[in-house]
């Protein structure tokens, strides 16, 4: 079953074409990585999926709902490249806000917040305000927020950004845990070596066009993901 289906997405900003007829289908219980150089159209694609940016043409469906329907967002968790929130909230307050938005009861919120804080080793800073956190702590808070609620699709934009090696290992473990529990993870990242290890399928996008969409195993039988990506993008 496909949890994310994008059909012929077109988007331009003035004269510049950001996405040129991108179509993509992602099945459930898999880790998908969207790879591309800076300005390739990855972030625009994610923003269209999340209905933050309107496509000029094409449709996106998330777990059977049109992406413009707020109900579609009940089934997704999103972590931006740079997580930011109201600076006067504590880490626990942020997670509680997410829990309330996702219709969790107080008991559910308490147990899920405790779990998320422990999962990302941020229970020591649970009562610290957002504006006192380091970049890494802020990223961990953003990642912890995705664990509040019971979503089907996790969209992580550059999840390794700003994290130390321990943080990177925590994120990889999280992604594999999510996959093991039947969830779908959509990752947008530049770190090809990590993507090769954790992704089942990848999409390569360049100058708004999807150049490849297929299994990582098929690629790694012959060469590394890095050299495959380099060849695909350079050929353009």
């Amino acid at each position, binding site marked *: 079953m496909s949890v994310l289906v994008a059909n012929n997405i077109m988007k331009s900003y003035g004269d510049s074409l950001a996405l040129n007829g991108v179509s993509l289908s992602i099945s459930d219980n898999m880790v998908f990585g969207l790879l591309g150089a800076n300005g390739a159209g990855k972030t625009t694609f994610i*923003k269209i999926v*999340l*209905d*933050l*940016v*309107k496509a000029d043409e094409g449709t996106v469906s998330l777990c059977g709902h049109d992406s413009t329907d*707020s*109900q579609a*967002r*009940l089934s*997704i968790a*999103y972590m*931006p490249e*740079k*997580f*930011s*929130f*109201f600076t*006067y909230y504590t880490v626990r307050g942020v997670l509680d*806000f*997410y829990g*309330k*938005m*996702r*219709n969790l009861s107080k008991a559910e919120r308490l147990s899920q917040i405790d779990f998320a804080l422990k999962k990302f080793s941020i229970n020591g800073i649970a009562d610290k305000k957002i504006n006192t956190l380091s970049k890494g702590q802020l990223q961990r808070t953003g990642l912890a927020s995705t664990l509040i609620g019971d979503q089907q699709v996790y969209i992580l934009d550059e999840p390794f950004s700003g994290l130390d090696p321990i943080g990177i290992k925590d994120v990889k473990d999280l992604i594999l845990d999510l996959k093991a529990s039947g969830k779908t993870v959509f990752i947008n990242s530049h770190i090809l070596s990590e993507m090769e290890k954790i992704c089942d399928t990848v999409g390569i996008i360049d100058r708004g066009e999807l150049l490849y969409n297929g299994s990582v195993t098929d690629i790694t039988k012959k060469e590394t993901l890095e050299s495959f990506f380099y060849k695909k993008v350079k050929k353009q």
Partner: protein
Amino acid sequence: MKNILLIISNTFQKEIRSKTLIFLSLMTLGVIVGLNTLLNFLGEKVLSDLGMGQAGGLAISGVTLMIGMWCYFLCSFLIVDTIRSDFEKGVTSLLMTLPIKRFEYLMGRVLGIWCIVACFYFVTSSVAFYLFNSTTKMSFSISLLGAFAINLLSYLAMIAIGLLISLYFKKLTGLAICMVCSFFIHSSNTYFMSKPISDVFSDFEIMKFIGASFHQLLPRIGVVSTVAKAILLDTELQINYLMESFHYIASLTFLLLIIRFLFKRKNL
């Protein structure tokens, strides 16, 4: 509804820290205490035979009008500040990835700021009344509550206008446009309130036409505040209250629908 309440509570938490709000509250309280001290002094030395009740009534009317003016500024400032800072810090886009409708977010912000302005208005007016009451032995008048309630309607409209502006302009520019708009709407409302619409075409001028468009299309905050002033000062107004009420509801609904349409299509 739950989402709107959550955003209202978030708006309270966010804007209650606003330095402008704290400064205006302290300054207003300072003016009230200063004026009260002056009345106390005059009561002992000068006004003892002239009727302190009347002086107190005038003082509280003046202070209420001043508080009312601050409230217009606060409406513009708080809505522009909260919406723009959400945009600039990337919080709007983050919130919109949660299961909340875009219009629910906007309504939460509007109602949250309306509540803050109402609290400011109520608290400062109550302090003023309490102090002047103890000094001048003036009696409580129901017109104070009437003016309070009517003024709240014009603040709601001002917040909605500020919201539309804040979707497209940065903080300072947005605030300046809000203040100019507020002045322009007040002026056009005051001018056209006692004139038929045919007056626009009798002696056609472009500014008059723009003023008439503002008067017809936007909520008449000038008329609403004039009604509040008339209630406060106990004067009579020659306006069609039913027609004005209908116009207020229709124009505010129209404005909110336009905002909903625009924000739904806005790239975040």
